[in-house]
């Protein structure tokens, strides 16, 4: 599997245009957001870093659908590589990719926006941003394995934009009607936002959002496994 992971990472590294594009939007949003209270500074930092991470893990998933349409998944199935190793490597790719927006936004946060976090708080925030994205990376894999290439684009965009808006990544939930606010609590992106914000503000990980993230991790892992097995038959 390391060889396969290396090959996929090399393919990504050669896709400069894609990498740039995936970083431009979160960086632009981050620079555009104003200064404010300590809470606002942290919220803006984790909100945009999380938004960027969400973007790359979702597109990592949709690119799987593209690879399938080119016969790449089938080619892999005709080698002795274990199918499980292939999925795991693809998931790890998403996690490696997620480092880019998280690191870039955090650098801007530390040196340009001067977000006042201690060393320990920085470490906790970065880890929360990184680990917290795992369930959404699994969701990305599921979309890639379940959908045809064009459908995957659409579903991926819906997931990316829809879940971030409804998850209150930028706009607080206060402006939402009550029923939507209640629903949003179970949105994995809301869980991710809450989790990273609380950690960023120096608190302990909140119980509810930790639970929501763990539950979605289990659910999306099962979905990804199902999607992968199903796609095997048709790839």
């Amino acid at each position, binding site marked *: 599997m390391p060889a396969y992971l290396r090959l996929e990472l090399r*393919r990504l590294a050669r896709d400069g245009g894609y990498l740039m594009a995936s970083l431009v939007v979160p960086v632009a949003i981050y620079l555009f957001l104003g200064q404010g209270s300590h809470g606002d500074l942290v919220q803006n930092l984790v909100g945009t870093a999380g938004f960027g991470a969400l973007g790359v893990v979702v597109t990592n998933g949709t690119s799987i659908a593209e690879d399938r349409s080119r016969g790449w998944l*089938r080619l892999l199935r005709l*080698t002795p590589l274990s199918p499980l190793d292939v999925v795991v490597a693809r998931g790890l790719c998403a996690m490696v990719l997620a480092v880019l927006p998280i690191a870039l936004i955090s650098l801007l946060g530390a040196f340009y926006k001067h977000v006042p976090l201690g060393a320990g708080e920085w470490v906790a925030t970065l880890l929360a941003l990184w680990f917290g994205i795992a369930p959404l990376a699994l969701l990305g894999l599921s979309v890639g394995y379940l959908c045809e290439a064009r459908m995957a684009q659409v579903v991926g965009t819906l997931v990316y934009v829809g879940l971030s808006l409804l998850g209150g990544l930028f706009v607080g939930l206060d402006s939402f009607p009550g029923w939507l606010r209640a629903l949003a609590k179970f949105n994995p992106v809301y869980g991710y936002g809450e989790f990273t914000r609380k950690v960023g503000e120096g608190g302990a990980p909140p119980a509810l959002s930790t639970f929501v993230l763990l539950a979605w991790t289990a659910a999306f892992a099962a979905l990804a496994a199902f999607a992968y097995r199903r796609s095997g038959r048709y790839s």
Partner: protein
Amino acid sequence: MTKSAVSEAVATDAGAPAVSCEDLVKSFGRVEAVRGVRFAVRPGETVAVLGPNGAGKSTTVHMMLGLFPPDAGSIELFGMAPEKAVRAGRVGAMLQEGQLVPRVTVGELVGFVAGTYGSQAPAVPHTLELAQIADLAGRRVDKLSGGQMQRVRFALALAGGARLVVLDEPTAALDVESRRQLWKAMRDYAAKGNTVVFTTHYLEEADDNADRIIVIAKGQVIADGPAEEIKKAAGGRTVAFRHEDQDPDELAALPGVNEVKVLHGRVVLTTTDSDATVAALAGAGLPMRDLEVAGADLEDAFVALTSASAEGGAG
């Protein structure tokens, strides 16, 4: 690849046929693509699967490789389920269609695939040389011409040093010279004791490169045997030359000749053994200007074979 898959492979390997297909059936919705295909391939054999468009060749190949299961029937490769044989590194494959994934070089891709087979894989430069793509090693696979891409896909099938290689129409997009080189590489590979199964539309190609030919039409095996037998059943080849004053009865009596026709000022002999026919023509001192020897038209051959199988003959 797990250790258990390998050791089990060793245990079940001895004496098992390289390929064994039992009464395969596969439908896509209302299309019955494969309707009871059954054949076996011995280790070391080179077998051509011959058939017209839509005969069910690729569907059979996909099932052999474990890409999808048959609706009914069973397949074993070296006594194992296809997926298991693939995981054990026993199988190298080239499918009929398929672009290549972008942003990888030829060398990287062949090297990566070879690596998945572990130590049994031959050196990458050797494989590149075999497939005539050594000069393309540094090029991106998605920026190659159709024929070059096809040679890369051929290299991927050989890259692991697998004991069974399955090639679905390996020469479709190739020019004459590349075709010749590919067949030579394939025969060299087979000569090392490996098993090769390939599909083709051309009786000539099957005849030149396979020990045995399996003819598939409309999802069924309609003939299975050595090339000579198939050619005989299919009406063999034609020998044609300018019509002068040759005696039709004398021509009909030549070795191998089934039929004598005169068309547009040319004599056309249908023969099961064109070499013997031409030799006898020359021996008898008969005039044979503008001599042409050709494979019989495959469509005719399929018609001949299909009607033969309907009468309970071949197949």
